């Protein structure tokens, strides 16, 4: 026997009825809550296994009493009645789902989908924080490992010291964060940003042999930098020593519409969002507005005619050109007119797009304050950034050497923009030099790029995704370019099927209504049918993490950003040895 059973937790009960999916356990009359995870030790046919079981329903059970209601009624009516020696007959009948089982193979634990059944009347253990953490961590390592920390494994109302992570290699297969208002999405985003920064710090210090992760994080309420309570991303930046800071965030991490309105300490790391009209392509606007075929062909014609100046030309036109159905121009102008009033989309002047590109290709985090933007501006910005980055990686993927890349880049990207980043791009993408003949790197060796899509239903809805949306390609092909979407939404039901079917990791927080719960369960990458009741009782900060590459749906408690920051703020200081080494040099 390899496993110390007492390390699993306290002996709670025995397996009663059930099958490989659902089990009934008869257990002690303890204060059990829905959502708790039990471990069942089984040794059928000499195979030592630990099954994981999640409580979905509870029922009081009195041995030798068929009609509990009648007994309760008698206790109520007959004032002198008692129950003699009943304590030992008071049990809890626990129903729940089998999550899978762990089996030791070749010195390591392997986790399998529920396809076997625990032994007859097998012992059931209830994990105890502080005792069960290590064995659970080991047994579930294949289910919880990764680079990006999300939270800790939740067992009912308590958590075990078992960190739940998302592997960075699966980020390009898109992540969904679903939860109603107040479910904890903002805190989760901040925890994720911190995890990405932590992972990048480890990579830069050579502690992890992985690619860094870049993230373009939309912050619709401007709360990531300063935080909701005490600390924010700015606190992390300030805790870093000079070297770590310049390695991990470069010279800015915060981009905003109005730099002047930024708090002083954040301003040092802030840049203003400016995107020139000539960096916008027709596909970008197709991704955020619905256009009739006539309007789209009019825009395409104008783009072919005027290239990068297409927006300015359209907005300057006074009447429908020949051959264009009457009213088309006005309809298109009405949709594009917001660009004239927009503080961030400018006709000419400087642009931040090349800085965003540099940041994303060097493994950095960008917090994008969109609180002062209109919806359309936010959507267009996300679209332009996503399309620009993906087109560059697409150009890279289609090239054999840097000369090919230059050709591909010129073909796919707006000329002024490409001209401004060409040299840098060659430096990032070239393998062993930046000469034309130098071969190019595989996108999988470049940083993973994660782009947040906030209020996702506004742009990832079936109507827009039916057209020539930028996001349709990304959702299908992002993996090839090592680029993923982080889809944040209050609703699942209104998202397009293309994105839902391509999504491989979902963080399901508390949801608003039955329809969303149903959609969430249908969309989950692993079977979580039967978890309806769980969603109904979820609290703020609790989530169910499902991933196609994992067998087990993982209940996670997302800690408060302030808590994890306080626990780990020491890690951002560089090692002393490094400092002194620099001094000697």
């Amino acid at each position, binding site marked *: 026997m390899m496993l110390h059973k007492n390390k699993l937790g306290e002996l709670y009960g025995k397996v009663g009825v059930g099958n490989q999916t659902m089990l009934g356990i008869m257990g002690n009359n303890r204060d059990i809550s829905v959502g708790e995870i039990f471990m069942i030790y089984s040794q059928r046919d000499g195979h030592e296994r630990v099954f994981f079981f999640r409580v979905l329903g509870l029922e009081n059970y009195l041995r030798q009493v068929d009609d509990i209601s009648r007994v309760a009624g008698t206790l109520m009516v*007959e004032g002198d009645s008692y129950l003699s020696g009943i304590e030992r007959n008071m049990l809890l009948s626990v129903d729940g789902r089998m999550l899978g089982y762990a089996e030791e193979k070749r010195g390591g634990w392997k986790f399998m989908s529920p396809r076997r059944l625990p032994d007859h009347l097998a012992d059931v253990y209830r994990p105890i924080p502080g005792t069960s953490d290590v064995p659970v961590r080991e047994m579930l390592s294949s289910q919880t490992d990764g680079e990006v920390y999300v939270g800790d494994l939740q067992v009912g109302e308590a958590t075990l010291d078992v960190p739940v992570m998302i592997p960075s290699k699966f980020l390009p297969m898109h992540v969904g964060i679903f939860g109603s208002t107040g479910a904890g999405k903002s805190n989760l985003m901040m925890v994720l940003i911190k995890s990405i920064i932590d992972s990048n710090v480890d990579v830069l210090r050579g502690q992890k042999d992985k690619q860094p992760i870049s993230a373009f994080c939309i912050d619709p309420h401007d709360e990531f930098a300063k935080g909701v309570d005490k600390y924010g991303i700015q606190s992390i930046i300030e805790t870093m020593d000079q070297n770590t800071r310049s390695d991990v965030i470069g010279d800015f991490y915060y981009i905003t519409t109005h730099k002047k309105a930024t708090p002083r300490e954040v301003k040092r790391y802030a840049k203003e969002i400016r995107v020139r009209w000539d960096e916008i392509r027709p596909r970008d606007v197709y991704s955020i507005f619905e256009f009739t075929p006539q309007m789209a062909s009019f825009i395409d014609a104008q783009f072919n005619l005027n290239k990068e100046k297409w927006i300015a030309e359209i907005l300057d036109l006074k009447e429908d050109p020949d051959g264009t159905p009457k009213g088309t121009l006005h309809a298109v102008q009405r949709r594009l007119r917001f660009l004239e009033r927009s503080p961030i989309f400018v006709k000419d002047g400087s642009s931040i797009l090349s800085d965003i590109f540099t940041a994303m290709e060097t493994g950095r985090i960008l917090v994008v304050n969109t609180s002062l933007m209109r919806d359309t501006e936010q959507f267009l910005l996300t679209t332009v950034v996503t399309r620009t980055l993906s087109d560059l990686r697409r150009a890279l993927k289609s090239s054999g050497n840097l000369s090919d890349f230059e050709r591909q880049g010129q073909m796919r990207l707006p000329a002024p923009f490409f001209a401004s980043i060409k040299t840098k791009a060659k430096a990032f993408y070239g393998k062993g030099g930046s000469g034309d003949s130098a071969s190019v790197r595989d996108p999988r060796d470049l940083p993973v790029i994660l782009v947040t899509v906030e209020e996702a239903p506004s742009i990832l809805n079936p109507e827009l995704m039916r057209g020539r949306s930028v996001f349709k390609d990304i959702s299908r092909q992002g993996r090839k370019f090592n680029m993923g979407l982080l889809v944040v939404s209050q609703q699942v039901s209104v998202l397009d099927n293309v994105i839902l079917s391509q999504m491989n990791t979902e963080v399901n927080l508390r949801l608003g209504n039955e329809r969303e719960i149903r959609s969430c369960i249908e969309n989950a990458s692993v079977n979580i049918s039967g978890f309806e009741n769980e969603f109904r009782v979820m609290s703020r900060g609790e989530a169910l993490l499902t991933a196609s590459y994992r067998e087990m749906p993982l209940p996670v408690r997302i800690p408060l950003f302030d808590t994890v920051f306080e626990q780990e703020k020491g890690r951002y200081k560089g090692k002393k040895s490094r400092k002194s080494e620099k001094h000697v040099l």
Partner: protein
Amino acid sequence: MTSFSDFTETEYEMYLPRLREMESLISRAQILTNTVVHEELRKVSEYAALRNVLTSDLNPRYLLLDGGLAVFLHFRRKYPSMPSGFMLRELCTLARKEGVVLCGVSKNHTIPFAHRIAKMAQDVFGDGTKWFCLLPSKEDPGGGLHITEDRTYIPPVLAVPYLFSFSSDNRPSRIDFDRIWWLENVFVPNDPVATRENEKALFRDIEFMSRDARWYGYPVPLAMAHESCKLSYEDLRLAREICRDVRIEMGLERRKTDPPRADYNL
């Protein structure tokens, strides 16, 4: 086992004379059907268990039996007609000696017009009252009840029966005491008030035993004993299964052991 000769040369041979003597005392031999024999076996087993309790160091105050204390007698009323009768009387003597109150509780009391007695109690004392009612015999002061005149075993020989009800939801049950013990400990000659006080003290104890919400109105020890030894349909099914396995192991012919209704999916 078909005859006494089967015992020869076994460890039971020494008991043969006593067995023959006992056989001679069984006066109901002519009606020994399977059911009667099974009932008798159950009774003697229970009495044997009871005897074990009385001779143990448990020292209970009360010893409760499921069923009445009736002893069927030879028609000339000289002695009990079955071995269980002898055992019960011997138990009564032993209980008296040990200071244990032996009582038999029967839910099926066979007392005529018990519901009328219950109704009268309800009318007099009100709803939800806990009551008991002595069913006197001809020997008691005031004589027996005319409703039991034609009933040979009500009251049972050498027993004192009471009807009682501790819950208005339940039909009344009967409880029997050993008459000799009753005469010594409850009945006070020429003093009905003192007798009633003794009865009340006795029933106060029994009533206190009967307040468990699971079996309200029925003594807990009997209820628990019933729960732990009753045969459920599932138990019977398992017993049939075991019986079938044993028959197969013994090489006996296969025989259906399920009840005949199972043949028709009933």
